[in-house]
């Protein structure tokens, strides 16, 4: 379904942030991306979404609906890019919901690209769509909070609403950027238990920091180290494999700090200017 090949992203000084990252995600898979901070996990997702421009490589999304269309994710622009994004349900670390809207309205946002802009401007969602949005909320066990103001929810609740929004979007693939990094252990477990069954219908690609979670729920793990894919396979990693993936980070704790400071770069996205998140 999602096919990323040789994705490369360089800093202006030529240093590689992503070095020929390739990964394939098929139907029924729940792929966990692991790696130390700054390894390029989130950056890979941002490139796929077109939020950060990649320097080279390809990313293609094949959909089975509508006679199996393919989308070239890295080169699309404007309307074509909106068409691509509509087929990818994204879940963020910081939930990123519109806090002053009701929970149900936030879920409705998932359908914006599918209805006529004029209708969306008037909030002209049909009763059938509202019922479907409520059904998405029921799936994440948040339907009783449909009328609450989103800003009054807790972090775990907001992440559930964000997942409901992605479900309501009816995407061809779910992309989750550290969906449980901001949550406590019990909420994290709850979110993983929601994502795992979703993956049986629609593939899920998630960036995680918890090898024990990916071992338990994911069907496959891809590990990225310094911008390179160093592992792609069984989610149950051995102690030695984990040390390989996170090794440099561990070594830095023991050694004095490196002399080259972390580069702070502002990356402008295509539609809205935002600070790139390289975590």
């Amino acid at each position, binding site marked *: 379904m999602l096919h990323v090949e040789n994705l490369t992203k360089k800093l202006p000084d030529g240093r590689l942030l992503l070095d020929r990252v390739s990964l394939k995600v098929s139907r029924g898979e729940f792929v966990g991306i692991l790696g130390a901070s700054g390894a390029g996990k989130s950056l890979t997702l941002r490139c796929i979404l077109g*939020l950060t421009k990649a320097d080279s490589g390809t990313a293609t999304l094949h959909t089975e609906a509508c006679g199996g269309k393919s989308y070239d994710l890295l080169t699309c622009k404007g309307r074509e890019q909106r068409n691509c994004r509509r087929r990818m349900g*994204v879940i963020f670390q910081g939930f990123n919901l*519109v806090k002053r809207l009701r929970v149900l309205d936030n879920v409705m946002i998932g359908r*914006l*690209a599918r209805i006529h802009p004029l209708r969306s*401007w008037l909030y002209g969602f049909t009763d059938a769509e509202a019922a479907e949005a409520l059904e998405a909320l029921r799936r994440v066990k948040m339907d009783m909070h449909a009328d609450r103001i989103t800003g009054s929810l807790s972090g775990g609740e907001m992440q559930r609403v964000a997942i409901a929004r992605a479900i309501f979007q009816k995407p061809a693939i779910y992309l989750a950027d550290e969906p449980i990094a901001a949550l406590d252990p019990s909420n994290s477990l709850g979110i993983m238990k929601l994502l795992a069954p979703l993956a049986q219908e629609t593939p899920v690609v998630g960036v995680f920091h918890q090898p024990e979670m990916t071992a338990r729920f994911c069907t496959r793990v891809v590990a990225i180290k310094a911008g390179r894919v160093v592992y792609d396979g069984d989610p149950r990693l051995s102690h030695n494999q984990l040390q390989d993936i996170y090794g440099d980070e561990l070594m830095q704790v023991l050694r004095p700090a490196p002399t080259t400071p972390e580069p702070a770069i502002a990356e402008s996205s295509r*539609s*809205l*200017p*935002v600070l790139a998140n390289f975590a």
Partner: protein
Amino acid sequence: MLVPLVIVSAWLCQVRFSGLWHDLGKGLEVIRFFFPPDWSSLREMAGPALVTVLLAALATPLGVLLSLGFGLAGARNIAPPWLRTTARALIGVERALPEIIVLLLLVAALGVGPFPGVIALAIGSVGMLGKLFADAIEEIDPKVLESVSCVGATRWQVIRHAVLPEVMPAFLANSIFRFEVNIRASVLLGAVGAGGIGFELSKAMSLLEYERAMMAVLVTLLLVFGAERVSDWLRAKVMDGGRLA
């Protein structure tokens, strides 16, 4: 540096403390002429008072709409840099121009009457509201806008479904406050040709009808005080509605 400046200014402004006592006495004498207020003119004041209120009531929504456009155009997270710079510059120029000057220019172009007053107040609102709106929009978490555009929404859909809901309470509260400011400004503009209670006041003063002028002052006080109460009440309502509870 400051002391010579003060002395020179005092000399140029013909400040004479010796005469102050004497003039103050004369001034108190004049104030006597204002009392009792001419209650019989209250009925005649109702029409002009209404004109003053309507002028502000018409100018405020017009100004709010204009400011919304300027606010969106002047926000870094919505508009491209060239548009933001242009919009912010226009807002700045407007803020530097007092409403009176805008009105005098408009009166020259459109003639005397409430209509140039409405336009002057609407334009005058942009200097304050345009900047406040643009600043409020720029304070929205960029990640929220990014996440809405990630569902495939157009820029206008992002504005409708993320930007407007997030800034709405601040937007309404500032607009209501501007209505209050516009009532006060409307009285002042009335005196220079926009009609209404301000015009009644300046007319009575120049005809030396001090009791009548006092009545106009009382009506003005009532208007401004009333507008303040209404605006406080409405703003409390809006803030309550926008509260995260």
